[in-house]
């Protein structure tokens, strides 16, 4: 069991690493909350999503689906694909999370992009308990996100529905992430496939049913030239990439 003062020391070590995340999480959380409210969802829905899902991209997508028809299978498949990168965070954390006992389930559940990158790369100071350090990093990050989403939900509920265009925040978010990926990748084959295959599926299957066909098409198109693409893409680290 932890010595007295262990948690305080771990909290003090974790706090400065969460500060740079703070502005981004609160801003994006508010944006996500306002976006969800602008779709006519209840003010508490962003809060529920920030606790149940805790992943920005997935929360935007799920919010956009909530006003439509009930289709849990598509939601499950889309979120699985959007969050698939976490599989590789888990692979990198197999060792660091060993022996974490009661903290392990929380550490796994709360492993968003930012908490993963801090916990994976941070050098825990001498004498600080690593388990509590990682727990506080995750807890601080998630608290900021939940607060941001809740504020956004409340602000959003106060903005009249006649103000058009707030929903573009989601488009802007994914344009930025796509561009960031584009500027850092060794080859654009996959990014271009994502755009073209999805646009083609949208034309063929229509706005309500195109996501699953698009994902299947992408999987086929990137798997077929695997022998050619694997050496090009293998220049990147396994754990990298959002």
């Amino acid at each position, binding site marked *: 069991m932890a010595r007295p003062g262990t948690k305080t020391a771990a909290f003090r070590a974790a706090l400065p690493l969460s500060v740079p995340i703070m502005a981004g999480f609160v801003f994006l959380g508010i944006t996500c909350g306002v976006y969800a409210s602008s779709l006519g969802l209840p003010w508490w829905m962003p809060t529920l999503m920030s606790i149940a899902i805790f992943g920005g991209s997935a929360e935007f997508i799920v919010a956009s689906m909530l006003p439509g028809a009930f289709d849990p299978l598509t939601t499950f498949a889309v979120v699985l694909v959007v969050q698939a990168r976490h599989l590789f965070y888990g692979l990198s954390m197999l060792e660091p999370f060993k022996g974490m006992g009661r903290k392990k389930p929380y550490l796994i559940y709360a492993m968003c992009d930012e908490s993963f990158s801090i916990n994976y790369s941070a050098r825990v100071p001498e004498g600080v308990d690593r388990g509590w350090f990682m727990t506080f990093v995750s807890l601080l990050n998630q608290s900021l996100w939940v607060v941001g989403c809740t504020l956004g939900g409340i602000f959003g509920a106060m903005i009249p529905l006649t103000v058009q265009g707030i929903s573009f925040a989601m488009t802007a978010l*994914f344009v930025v992430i796509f561009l960031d990926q584009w500027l850092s990748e060794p080859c654009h084959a996959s990014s271009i496939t*994502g755009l073209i295959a999805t646009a083609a599926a949208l034309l063929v299957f229509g706005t309500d049913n195109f996501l699953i066909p698009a994902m299947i098409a992408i999987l086929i198109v990137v798997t077929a030239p695997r022998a050619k693409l694997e050496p090009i893409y293998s220049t990147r680290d396994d754990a990298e990439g959002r």
Partner: protein
Amino acid sequence: MTILQQVITVLVAGAATVLTRALPFVAFRNGAPRYVRYLGRVLPGAVFGLLVVYCLKDVDVFAGSHGVPEALGILVTGGVYVWRRDMLWAILAGTLSYMALVNLVFV
């Protein structure tokens, strides 16, 4: 969706997320198969391309404002991002210019 269906949808999305975060601790204790690692490197670009198109699914180039505000909003977002390399400013600038366009210009 009813409120109950919305809550179920959110919980399903939460389960899918937890699955991606927990699966390696259950299934890939000795490393992931090579094909899975390949997909991990190659898919992110395609997934974000899919999400960009998903955001634009309701744009009709043959009617209304013909997708002009969306195209301009994307140009502003991308331009500010390439210029400042700051995600938050790019999103703010893109969203505000889009809102100005649809509320004031393309009414």
